[in-house]
């Protein structure tokens, strides 16, 4: 498109290296901490690279020996998977019909705008009544209660994504099928839903990442291994009297691994989902 002068090319590469360093340095350090012997991390001057890599903390956290640090970590890992998974399934089940309805019937669109506007609500504005209600129903410290609460965040978001997804599927295809004698249900099942599967998958992925990331409600509504999620477990570790910082870093690496892998593998889909609303305005 344009010819770059040598000086400009040099500037671009220096800036690119700088950006890469800014992004990678903290992440690499998190990993180095997780494999450095505790003595190295407490040394002055600090040792930036371990003489011998020590992966034992990963084994510690991923063990299921009873009453160990690993057991607590594995329980929170399982809770995070269950809560984020259940909330995602429920959010998608609500979002697919609602998203389709709004996409094909603009006159009901205002109700989706109201649902999306709840994004502005700080969770603290709902926290006290939700706490009291969960307590009344015996759903405090329960994965089901927490998953239900997560719908406050996941359901509006997935409905919005599904609506934009259905907008991209021409309604003429549906009309053609109806003219050919298909019932509405057949049309949706045979024509529309298969075409919408990529959007369903992206929405589900986003929803799962949101649930995996959630901290505020989990902090308030869970108290022990029966429901405590990974984010709360890590905050406990970071705020507690753990003397081995490497162990905290290891827990961080393990918690970050699923979203980071998803982010790298699904990059294209995630970015188009992230930006579709933004670019369309």
């Amino acid at each position, binding site marked *: *498109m344009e010819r*770059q002068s040598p000086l400009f090319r040099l500037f*671009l590469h220096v800036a*690119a290296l700088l*950006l890469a360093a800014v*992004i*990678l340095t903290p*992440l690499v*350090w*998190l990993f180095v901490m997780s494999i450095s012997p505790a003595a190295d991390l407490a040394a002055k*001057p*600090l040792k930036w690279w371990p003489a011998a890599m020590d992966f034992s903390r990963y084994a510690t956290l991923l063990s299921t020996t009873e009453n160990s640090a690993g057991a607590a970590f594995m329980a929170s890992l399982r809770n995070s998977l269950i809560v984020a998974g259940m909330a995602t399934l*429920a959010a998608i089940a*609500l*979002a697919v*019909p*609602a998203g*389709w309805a709004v996409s*094909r*019937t603009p*006159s009901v669109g205002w109700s989706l705008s109201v649902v999306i506007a*709840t994004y*502005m*609500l*700080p*969770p*603290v*504005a*709902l*926290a*006290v*009544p939700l706490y*009291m209600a969960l307590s009344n129903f015996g759903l405090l410290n329960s994965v089901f209660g927490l998953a239900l609460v997560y719908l406050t965040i996941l*359901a509006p978001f997935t409905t919005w994504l599904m609506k934009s997804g259905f907008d991209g599927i021409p309604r003429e295809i549906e009309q053609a099928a109806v003219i050919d004698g298909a019932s509405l249900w057949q049309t949706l099942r045979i024509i529309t839903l298969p075409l919408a599967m990529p959007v369903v998958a992206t929405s589900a992925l986003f929803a799962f990442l949101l649930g995996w*990331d959630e*901290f*505020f409600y989990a*902090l*308030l509504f869970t108290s022990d291994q029966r429901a405590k999620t990974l*984010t709360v477990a*890590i*905050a406990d*570790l*970071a*705020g507690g009297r753990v003397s081995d*910082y490497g162990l905290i870093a290891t827990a*961080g690496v393990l*918690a*970050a691994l699923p*979203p*980071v892998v998803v*982010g*790298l593998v699904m*990059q294209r889909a*995630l*970015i188009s989902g992230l*930006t579709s609303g*933004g*670019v369309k*305005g």
Partner: protein
Amino acid sequence: MSGTWITTRAWLLMLPLLIVMVAVIGWPLADTVQLSFTDAKLVGTSGSYVGFDNYVRLVSGNAFGRTLFTTTFFAVVVVTTEMVFGVLAALLLNQQFYGRTLLRALLILPWALPTVVNATLWRLIYNPEYGALNAALTQLGILDSYRSWLGEPGTALTALIVADCWKNFPLVAMIALAALQAVPRDVIAASYVDGASAFSRFRFVTLPYLAGPLMVALVLRTIEAFKVFDIVWVMTRGGPANSTRTMSILVYQEAFSFQRAGSGASLALIVTLIITVLAIAYGTAVKKVAGSAT
């Protein structure tokens, strides 16, 4: 098929979502409004009606003003920095250079890192005894002795801001990059033919395509920055000496640490009101920018 049936069918399909939303958002919000006029405690007493007492007491207390200032300061600095660095990164990634694809892929990493892990990571970096920041600055000769970055009121908020910007500027960059890629190549080619300078090319060709998406990013990030809780809670819990206490932390303390559900609810509603006003003001601006840009 008649129009009324299509509308009815649409409402039926929306119904499950609307029921759940009323149950988990609508009803709790209404209950928060009702609670805010009482002196209810979190457990036990349901409290009695006290009118606007909670609101008056909170707004006239000195914690409120200071916390509002801290939150606003945090939001303004964080959002401005993220927008500037995000757009600069996007402009860079829109150029041709070796390793561009890899760098674009790396951009997603801070965004994908869970907020709590990010906060924990930076807490370790800032550690007063063994932290990497202290070690690096001392070994480079910039610092004489280790400092407690999160333990001193003078540096704690800045330390938080750095951690938040690092995680969130890639989101702005990704949105801006997608917008840049939507600029038609022939328009740019035409600007070269017309002899436009690099600056006027950015100002009159690129910026109009960026303005709409950037406004949306600005609105989203401002709302999130105003609601901020996770990163503050994990890194400082609002301390030291309340120097990093944001509105959400203050509500948490009021409602859950001190168990004053009534005044906690009032405070939460004040925060909601501020965010709503901000969002409406921004929304108007977005419409204006989007209208003039295209």
